[in-house]
């Protein structure tokens, strides 16, 4: 018997045994919380996966493959105009940081070899909040208003925080001690107008498929709602034409996929998700069987799906277990939540910011967690504060940031993030 190796097994087994032994099954609060987790997971599976997440993955994949990251990086380089650099840094997260794992290297690069501390900080702050997947899921689950507030808040405050950091440390020589930036080669980028149309078609599919039912039965919004599937189908058809014209996908294949999709949509007119799902499968078939950039597009999208889906679903289960669906209670009593972060006091906003800053949210899990918190009585202002402070900093990424810019700057940065998030939450909560 070799206890040196075996103790881990023993500890693990004993741990599982103890958890099971004392498992509070049968206690109503616990049983209910488990059910809430399952309910929330079910509602995500029904409402958000096919129409929202799947197209969002394709868009994210397309950004990674078809948009030139290098063009953006030029505006953040060492000899970039400073004013421009702040602006570009604050919005470029959408294109550069399709996934949160790429943010830190880019941040370090902009600081060391590029436009310096201010723009680097602006990028670091806004990046996680304005990557496409985050915006789409926030808007879909927490409402358009919250999605827009998150994006606008992140962009505006990133510039402010970047400038403040720059002013505080203006005497220090900015980075630029490192080697020259190495950028990848841009091979065969297509003209801008083609990219614009192509992304517009994809975004139209996403937006119109998810068009919510307006309150009134008349007017322009209702008209759009009534014909949303027609518009979605047209946009998808446009996408198909572009695939043939610009991406040299054989016309026979695209026509076949379109025909099958149309057949399913017309056979199940009352459950449009069927037709939509068939269309997505068709697109996967078209892209994955085509050599070159089409396949890159598919594997990029598939990579995001593999990376994000498991985390998101476990996040949803945990959020449901802890906080319940909106309107129901999970294991944490709603009173606790509403007494800490209910309403819109400065204190509530501060608590939300600080909690958000130190907590680690795996990619996108901030959304179900926030949904649970808001359902338990968290105010809108504190919710925004948490959304702004949350994904931008966490304990693990503070450590990496510290290794790049040092302890002092990191503390200043985190403090600024907390202060700004608190203020913007407070303002948002007061206005809306």
């Amino acid at each position, binding site marked *: 018997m070799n206890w040196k190796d075996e103790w881990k097994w023993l500890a693990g087994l004993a741990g599982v045994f103890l958890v099971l032994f004392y498992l509070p099954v049968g206690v109503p609060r616990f049983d209910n919380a488990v059910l809430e987790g399952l309910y929330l997971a079910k509602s995500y599976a029904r409402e958000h996966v096919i129409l929202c997440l799947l197209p969002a993955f394709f868009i994210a994949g397309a950004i990674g493959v078809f948009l030139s*990251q290098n063009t953006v*990086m030029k505006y953040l380089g060492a000899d970039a105009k400073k004013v421009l650099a702040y602006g570009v840094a604050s919005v470029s997260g959408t294109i550069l940081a399709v*996934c949160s*794992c*790429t943010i*830190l*290297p*880019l941040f*370090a*690069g*902009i600081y*060391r*070899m*590029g436009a310096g501390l201010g723009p680097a900080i602006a990028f670091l702050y806004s990046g996680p909040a304005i990557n496409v997947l985050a915006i789409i899921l926030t808007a879909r689950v927490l409402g358009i208003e919250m999605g827009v507030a998150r994006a606008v808040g992140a962009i505006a405050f990133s510039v402010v925080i970047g400038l403040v950091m720059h002013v505080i440390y203006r005497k220090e020589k900015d980075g630029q001690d*490192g*080697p*020259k*930036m*190495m*950028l*990848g080669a841009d091979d065969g980028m297509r003209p801008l107008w083609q990219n614009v149309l192509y992304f517009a078609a994809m975004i139209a599919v996403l937006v119109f498929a998810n068009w919510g039912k307006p309150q009134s039965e008349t007017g322009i919004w209702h008209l759009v709602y009534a014909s949303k599937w027609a518009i979605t189908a047209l946009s998808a058809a446009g996408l198909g034409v572009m695939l043939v014209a610009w991406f040299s996908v054989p016309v026979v294949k695209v026509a076949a996929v379109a025909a099958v999709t149309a057949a399913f949509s017309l056979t199940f007119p009352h459950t449009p998700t069927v037709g939509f799902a068939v269309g997505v499968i068709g697109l996967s078939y078209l892209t994955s069987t085509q050599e070159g950039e089409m396949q890159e597009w598919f594997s990029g999208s598939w*990579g995001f799906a*593999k*990376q994000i889906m498991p985390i998101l679903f476990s996040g949803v289960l945990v959020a449901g277990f802890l906080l319940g669906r909106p309107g129901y209670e999970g294991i944490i009593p709603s009173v606790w939540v509403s007494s800490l972060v209910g309403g819109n006091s400065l204190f509530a906003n501060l608590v939300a910011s600080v909690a958000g800053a130190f907590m680690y949210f795996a990619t996108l899990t901030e959304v179900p967690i926030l949904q649970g918190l808001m359902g338990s009585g968290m105010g809108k202002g504190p919710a925004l504060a948490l959304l702004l402070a949350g994904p931008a900093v966490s304990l693990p990424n503070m450590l*990496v940031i510290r*290794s*790049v810019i040092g302890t002092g700057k990191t503390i200043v940065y985190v403090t600024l993030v907390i202060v700004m998030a608190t203020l913007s939450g407070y303002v948002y909560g007061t206005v809306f």
Partner: protein
Amino acid sequence: MKKKLQILGTGCAKCIKLAANVEEAAKRAGIDYEIEKVTDINQIMKFGVMMTPALAVDGKVKLVGKVLPPAELENLIKG
């Protein structure tokens, strides 16, 4: 001479994929090689790389920001 193949990346899924592809490409090319994974962000910056994953051969950056299949990597490693 032994070629030094360095994979630069903080450990995301793509970096692992690139490492596997490089290994395969090097075996195919039949060269004498050693693979090193550079995961520390400050070390990566010293190469001038900010879009991971990246590949450096004998200290020279050959590929930035994407994964290539083994067949295409073979040329980069040889050259």
